[in-house]
């Protein structure tokens, strides 16, 4: 049998085995919230969590990161490129929706003539240990966007939580290399694999949030000017939590942090958001999206209309973070309902005519 078993109590053994080779990232509780952090002691790893507040995206595409450093020698500038992009990374405990987001990010950053090396090199050097979801949250909807609580896409090793231990499946060559190092893992039995399958099915059936996104995309494509956007934007306070916590949002600002006195500094990129009016504000004062309505519309259109037209798939992985995070409950489920109502109204009018 290829599948192995990993006792939960052996997580520290796993950590100690690989920590010298990889920068080991895992869920950790920081000020009451789970996020993926660089682990220095196995005790920090949190195994009991539904999902992290901030997606593991920020390991590969951090909120703030250096593009390059530089220093001045007289009028000459010397650019120092980052050397740490070659470091091997291991991200432990990634949920299937977030693992799938890596696929979307990878395709986005590799799209077109220019390759975003800063992201892609890290992605290439990252090994992902995914973990199936036995208890999807009420806000989760991965099954509506082509995902599944046990989807293995973009993972190298996949874990199923069987109580006191994990079933370990090797998905890729990278995963094989990792599992080879853990010679002490015991072999799984047929019953373990069946138990994992049963959990996957049970999880799939427990989803309460479901959408027909094919219809959503169609309605969006035809209703850019619909007055429903005013309604959708009305309660939004522009806090941008939805975009900052989104595992597929990729927008960033670029800033030079200059240390004037030491004639050196660095150019950084930092997450930005289409929900801010400054995002598109031009120096002349002109702003293509000056109103909230245009900005709210841009987020929804981007995920469910623009992204599908460029990549032939939705720009959303169904993690539900934007639903949980919205402080005014102007959440995606309600927005999608309002959008679908356009279609229902039109059909109703046709029926009455």
């Amino acid at each position: 049998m290829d599948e192995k078993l990993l006792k939960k109590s052996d997580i520290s053994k796993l950590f100690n085995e690989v920590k010298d080779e990889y920068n080991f990232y895992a869920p950790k509780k920081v000020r009451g919230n789970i996020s993926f952090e660089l682990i220095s002691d196995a005790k920090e790893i949190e195994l009991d969590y539904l999902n992290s507040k901030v997606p593991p995206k920020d390991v590969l595409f951090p909120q703030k990161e250096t593009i390059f450093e530089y220093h001045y020698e007289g009028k000459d500038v010397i650019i120092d490129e980052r050397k740490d992009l070659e470091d091997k990374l291991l991200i432990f405990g990634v949920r299937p929706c977030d693992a799938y987001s890596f696929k979307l990010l990878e395709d986005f950053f590799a799209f077109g003539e220019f390759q975003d090396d800063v992201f892609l090199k890290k992605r290439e050097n990252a090994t992902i240990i995914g973990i199936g979801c036995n208890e999807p949250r009420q806000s989760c909807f991965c099954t509506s966007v082509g995902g599944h609580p046990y989807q293995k896409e973009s993972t190298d090793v996949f874990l199923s939580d069987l109580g006191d231990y994990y079933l370990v499946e090797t998905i890729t060559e990278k995963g094989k290399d990792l599992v080879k190092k853990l010679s002490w893992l015991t072999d799984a039995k047929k019953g373990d694999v069946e138990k994992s399958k049963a959990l996957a099915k049970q999880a799939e059936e427990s989803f309460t949030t479901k959408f027909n996104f094919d219809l959503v995309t169609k309605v969006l494509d035809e209703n850019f000017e619909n007055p429903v956007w005013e309604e959708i934007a009305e309660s939004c306070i522009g806090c941008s939590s939805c975009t900052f916590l989104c595992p597929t949002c990729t927008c960033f600002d670029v800033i030079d942090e200059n240390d004037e006195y030491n004639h050196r500094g660095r150019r950084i990129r930092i997450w930005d958001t289409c929900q801010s009016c400054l995002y598109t504000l031009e120096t002349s004062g002109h702003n293509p999206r000056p109103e909230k309505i245009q900005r709210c519309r841009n987020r929804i259109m981007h995920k469910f209309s623009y992204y599908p037209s460029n990549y032939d798939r939705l720009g959303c992985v169904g993690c539900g973070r934007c639903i949980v995070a919205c402080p005014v409950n102007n959440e995606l489920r309600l927005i999608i309902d309002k959008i679908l109502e356009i279609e229902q109204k039109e059909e109703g009018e046709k029926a009455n005519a």
Partner: protein
Amino acid sequence: MPNPYIPILTKVKSIISENKVNDIKTIELQFQKEDDYKSFDYIPGQFAEISIIGKGECPIGIASSPTEEGSIKFTIKKMGTVTSMFHRSDIGDTIGVRGPLGNGWPIEELKGKNIVVIGGGFAFSTLRSLILYILDEKHRKDYGNVTVIYGNRDSGEVLYRDVLEEWEKRDDIDVVLTIDREEEGWTRKVGFVAAIVKEVAPSPDNAVAIICGPPIMIRTAVDELVKIGWKDEQILNSLEMRMKCGIGKCGRCNIGSKYVCIDGPVFSLAELKKMPNEY
């Protein structure tokens, strides 16, 4: 392929003040290595992200033509933080360049066509590049008649006086210069660009119009062209938008599913009409 966020380093070779109020300068940049210059293989209408390392980066259209060998030029209006720093730079300063970026004017598709260039104000830089390219002896035979209508608020704002005077002397290009109001000593046209377009009435037969300028000028000039039979497919615009990366990653220059930095900045009016009105 090199990391697209790392700029190529160049040095300021010359600085020319372009207008009377001195808020527009053309900065000429010299590459430090021959290979860097060769790899900067551009066509008119493309732009680059240029930066003063430590102050910031901004997207600027390339004002020089690839036929002017050895260096590249950018015409920069003093507007914000970075452009103001460019105005303070000296000869010999180090400037970072990332590019060429964007699609540029469709120089291949324009072959065999009559070209009508309509420009207003300081948006003339990539038009300068295009006209110089077409007038170059290697390329002139590939293109039909060239008509240039270039308008400014007053005579002090007219850019590139040296090349304009040369073009006026040539018989293979019609140059029509105009300013908004009468001025002593001004011998060319007076009136808004749209009025001059109406007066010149360029024929749409086998022709393409290339328009750059303030939005109000573009709208009124396009109206005049449409009245005399021009089709949306024949009218090309170059858009500006706030940008950070210039390579389709930072997100902000999207118009619907298109990005101005990689799908543009040049779009035909027909293409623009299919896109949401968010630019």
